[in-house]
C-alpha cells in the first residue's frame, strides 16, 4: 500500500465511487477467456459442488454434483469438466509462429494464442490447484479406474495454478485481484475480496453510488458468495433439504422423481451462480475498457511460450507434476518467481505514469521538462572520442539522486543518463538536473534525430532499471547439499507411477 493508493482510497470514500490507481491495463485479457466459477461443499476437502463455466456470456454451462460426498459422482464431474476444459485448451494448439532463439542461430515455435481462465477470487485459484492435485494422479486401471481425460485434466489444472503464482502471467487470473490492482475503493482489502462489493464500487448500477451498491451486494440473498465457499444460510435452509430429497429419490425406484430432484438442485445452484456469472462479465468489461500497457503483449508472449512447451509435454505423455518440489526445484522456482516479480513491478511503472508516480513520491523518479539540450556533445578526454550529449531537465518533483547516479527514461530504455549536476532553483521549489546521455544513439559521433530528448519535451527519469540480471545458478538435483536434505532418494522422473501410486489409490471418501 503506497500513500498514493491510500489517498485514492480516501478520495473513494468521499466520492462514494472507486478511483483509478492505474491508467492502463496491466493484464492481458483474451478475446475468448474461459470464465470459471467453482463451488465446493462446506467442510469437505475441495469437494466440487457445482461450476458455472464458459467462454460466452450468454451461454454459461452448469455442472453439478448432486452428492458431493460420493466419489463416483466426483469423478463423473471431473470427466465432464475435462470435456469442457481440454477442448478449450487444445483449441489453441493450432497456428504457430517462429521465434528466433540462441542468438538467431535457431528457431522454436509457439502458438499464436493461448487459453486464459478467469476465476472470481484467489480462493478460486486454490480450487483449481487442489482439484488438479486430486485428479492428476488418478489411474485409468486398477481399483477405481477413471477416464483418461481425468488425470489429463489434473495436469492442466495444476499447470494453470502454477502459472497463477508467476507475477505478470495472465493464464489464470482472479478478477478481484485484477480489479483491485487497477482501482481503489472506499473499503478495506478484506471487503474488496468480495467480488460483488468490489465490482459495485467500480461500476455501480445507474443512479446509485458505488458505496451503497457495494453494501447491498454484501447481502448473500442479493449477491450470493462468489465461491468456492457457499453461504451457510443457503446450505442449511435450501441446499441441504434439496440434497436430502435427491438422495431419497435416487435410492427409490422412480426415475422421474430422481430427475426432478436433480433438476431442482440444478436450478438452486444456478440461482447461486448466475449473479456471480453476471458480475464476472461486468468486471471483464471494465478491464477491457482500459487500454493495455505497452509490455502486456510481451508478457502474454511468455505465457504463450510456456503454454506451447507444456502442451508438447502433455502430448508426449508427460508425467504428472510432483506433489512437492524437491529442494533444488523449489529454490529454482522461487528464484524465477522473485525475478518475475521484480521485472513485473518495473514494467508496470514504465508502462503507467500513475504507477511511476508512486516512485516519484518515493524519490526514485522525477518528471520534468527539457530546457537545454546539446545533442552533439563529444567527450574526447578518453582514448577515442565518444558521443555524450547532455540535457538539462527542470522538475518540480523532489530529486534525491546523488551526482553520478545512472538513470533511465521509460521512453528511451536503451539510453542511460548519468546525473552530472543537481541544482535547486531559488523560486517555486524547482530543481535543475543535468544528465549526460550514453547508448541508444548508434555508433557514430552524431546522434540520429529523435534519439536525444529535445528542448520542450516532457520526460521521466528513474533509477528503476529493466537491465539484464543473470539468472542464479543452482546445483543439480543429484548434488542437493546435505543442508537441504541431500540428494532425494528417488524422483518422479525415475518412476512416475510409483510416487503417484499412493495418490492414485488414496481414499476419497
Amino acid at each position: 500500500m503506497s500513500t498514493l493508493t491510500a489517498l485514492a482510497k480516501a478520495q473513494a470514500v468521499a466520492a462514494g465511487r472507486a478511483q483509478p490507481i492505474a491508467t492502463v491495463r496491466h493484464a492481458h485479457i483474451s478475446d475468448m477467456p474461459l470464465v470459471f466459477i467453482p463451488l465446493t461443499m462446506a467442510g469437505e476437502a475441495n469437494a466440487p459442488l457445482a461450476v458455472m463455466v464458459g467462454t460466452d456470456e450468454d451461454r454459461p454451462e452448469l455442472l453439478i454434483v448432486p452428492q458431493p460426498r460420493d466419489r463416483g459422482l466426483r469423478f463423473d464431474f471431473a470427466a465432464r469438466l475435462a470435456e469442457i476444459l481440454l477442448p478449450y485448451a487444445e483449441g489453441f494448439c493450432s497456428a504457430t509462429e517462429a521465434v528466433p532463439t540462441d542468438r538467431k542461430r535457431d528457431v522454436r515455435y509457439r502458438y499464436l494464442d493461448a487459453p486464459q481462465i478467469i476465476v472470481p477470487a484467489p480462493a478460486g485459484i486454490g480450487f483449481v490447484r487442489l482439484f488438479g492435485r486430486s485428479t492428476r494422479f488418478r489411474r485409468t486401471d486398477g481399483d477405481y479406474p477413471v477416464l483418461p481425460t481425468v488425470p489429463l485434466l489434473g495436469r492442466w489444472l495444476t499447470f494453470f495454478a502454477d502459472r497463477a503464482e508467476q507475477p505478470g502471467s495472465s493464464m489464470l487470473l482472479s478478477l478481484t485481484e485484477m480489479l483491485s490492482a487497477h482501482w481503489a475503493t472506499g473499503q478495506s482489502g478484506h471487503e474488496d475480496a468480495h467480488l460483488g462489493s468490489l465490482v459495485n464500487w467500480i461500476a455501480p448500477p445507474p443512479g446509485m453510488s458505488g458505496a451503497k451498491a457495494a453494501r447491498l451486494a454484501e447481502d448473500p440473498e442479493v449477491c450470493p458468495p462468489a465461491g468456492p465457499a457457499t453461504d451457510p444460510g443457503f446450505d442449511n435452509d435450501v441446499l441441504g433439504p434439496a440434497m436430502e430429497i435427491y438422495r431419497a429419490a435416487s435410492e427409490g425406484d422412480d426415475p422421474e422423481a430422481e430427475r426432478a430432484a436433480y433438476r431442482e438442485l440444478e436450478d438452486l445452484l444456478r440461482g447461486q451462480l448466475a449473479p456471480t456469472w453476471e458480475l464476472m462479465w461486468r468486471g471483464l468489461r471494465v478491464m477491457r475498457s482500459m487500454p493495455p500497457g505497452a509490455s502486456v503483449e510481451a508478457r502474454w508472449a511468455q505465457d504463450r511460450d510456456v503454454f506451447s512447451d507444456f502442451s508438447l509435454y502433455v502430448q508426449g505423455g508427460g508425467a504428472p507434476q510432483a506433489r512437492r518440489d524437491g529442494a533444488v526445484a523449489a529454490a529454482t522456482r522461487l528464484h524465477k518467481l522473485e525475478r518475475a516479480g521484480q521485472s513485473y513491478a518495473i514494467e508496470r511503472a514504465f508502462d503507467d505514469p500513475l504507477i511511476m508516480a508512486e516512485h516519484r513520491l518515493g524519490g526514485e523518479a522525477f518528471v520534468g521538462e527539457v530546457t537545454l539540450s546539446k545533442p552533439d556533445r563529444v567527450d574526447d578526454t578518453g582514448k577515442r572520442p565518444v558521443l555524450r550529449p547532455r540535457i538539462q531537465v527542470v522538475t518540480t518533483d523532489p530529486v534525491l539522486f546523488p551526482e553520478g547516479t545512472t538513470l533511465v527514461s521509460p521512453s528511451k530504455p536503451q539510453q542511460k543518463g548519468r546525473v552530472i549536476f543537481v541544482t535547486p532553483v531559488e523560486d517555486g521549489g524547482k530543481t535543475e538536473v543535468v544528465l549526460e546521455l550514453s547508448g541508444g544513439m548508434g555508433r557514430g559521433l552524431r546522434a540520429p534525430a529523435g534519439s536525444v530528448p529535445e528542448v520542450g519535451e516532457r520526460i521521466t527519469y528513474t533509477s528503476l532499471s529493466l537491465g539484464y540480471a543473470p539468472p542464479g545458478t543452482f546445483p543439480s538435483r543429484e548434488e542437493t547439499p546435505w543442508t537441504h536434505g541431500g540428494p532425494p532418494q528417488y524422483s518422479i522422473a525415475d518412476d512416475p507411477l510409483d510416487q503417484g501410486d499412493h495418490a492414485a489409490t488414496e481414499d476419497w471418501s
Partner: protein
Amino acid sequence: MAQTSTPDARLDRLRGPVAPRRHNARTIAALTGNPGCTRRAVLDGAGVDKMKVAEHIGFPGRFGQSSFAIVRGNVFEARLKANEGAALVGLLGVDVPKYLDLSGGPKASNEERYSRTLEALRDNPDTLLDHPMLRLEVAGRRVYLEPDLVAFQLDNRYHVVEIKSFPVIDEQADPGKVSAAATQAAVYVLALREALAEAGRDPETVSHHVLLVCPKDFSNQPVSSMIDVRRQLSVLRRQLSRMARIDQLLDTLPDGLTFDLEAGDDGEPARDPEALTADIEAVPARYAPDCLATCELSFFCRAEARTSTAVLGRSVREELGGIEDVQTVLALAHGTIEPTPDQAEAAVLLQAAYRLRAELVP
C-alpha cells in the same frame, strides 16, 4: 458508575436480568483479535449477547456455520474416538494407554465433570482423557470449557489434542485455519495448567506443543502435527489479565448504562433500539476490518466508523499518516486546512500525492 460495587455486580447491571452468554474456547480465542477495543471487552466481560444486540439495533451479523461442515467435523471426530480412541492411539505411535470417557452422561453438571477431570489428572496420569471438563477465569467469571478433544500424556508431558476437520494436503493446510486452531488449543493449554495446579501437580508438565489432528489429503485418514502455541499463550494471558482488570474500564463509562435485552411480551427485547444504540455508542470501540470476521457487532461499528480512515484498514491509515478522519486527510491533501504540528509531515506527503493524482488522473 458507582465506585463501591464489585466488578461482577457492575457487569450484571450492564447486562440486565438475563443469563450471561457463556464463553467457550472459540469466543475466548476471539478475544485476542482486537485487544484494544473497550466496547468488546466490556460487552464480553458482562456476557452480553452481542449477536442479539446487533440484530436489535438493525445491524444483524452473518455468523452462521454450514450444517455440512458441522456434520463432517462430527463424523471425523467420532471416527477418531471410536473404540476407545484406537485411531488416535495408533496415530500417536505410543503404547496403548488407558482410555477414560469423562462425559459422565447427560445429567452430569459442569462442576461434577470438572472434579472428575481433576481426579483423573491426579490418579490416572497415563490415561487418554476423552470429554474432560476444564475451567478458566474470564473477567472474574468462571468459564467451563469442554475441549472437543482429549488431554493425554506423552513423553511425561501432557499434550492437548485438537481435532479439526480441515484437510492437510501434501503436508500443507490453510494457515488461517491452523492459526485459529492453535489459538483455541492455547485456551485449553491454559485451562489444563490451572486444573493441574488445582490437582496438586506441576502445571508446567503441560506442553506448549499441541497435537493438531486433521484429515490427510482428500481422505478421512487422520494425520497429526505438533504446533508450538507459546505465542498464542502469551497473547491470551495478556488479554485475560486485561479483562480481569475490567473495573478500570468500567470506571471510564458513564453512569446508568445498560445493554439489557430482557424480552417483552412479544418475546423480542423490550428495550427501545435507539436507547440501546445510544448506550452502545457511549462505550468507545476500536473498529478494524478484521473485526468483520470475528465480532458480531462489527457491522454496527463499521457504519459508525464510516467517515474514519479505520474502515480502510490499518495499513492504509498508516500510509495516511495515522490521521483518523477521511475529510481531514482530504483537506490536508488539498491544503485547505493548516496541519497541526504532528500532522505536518503527513501533510507534505499528502499534498505531493494529491498533486500527482491531480496531474495524472483524468
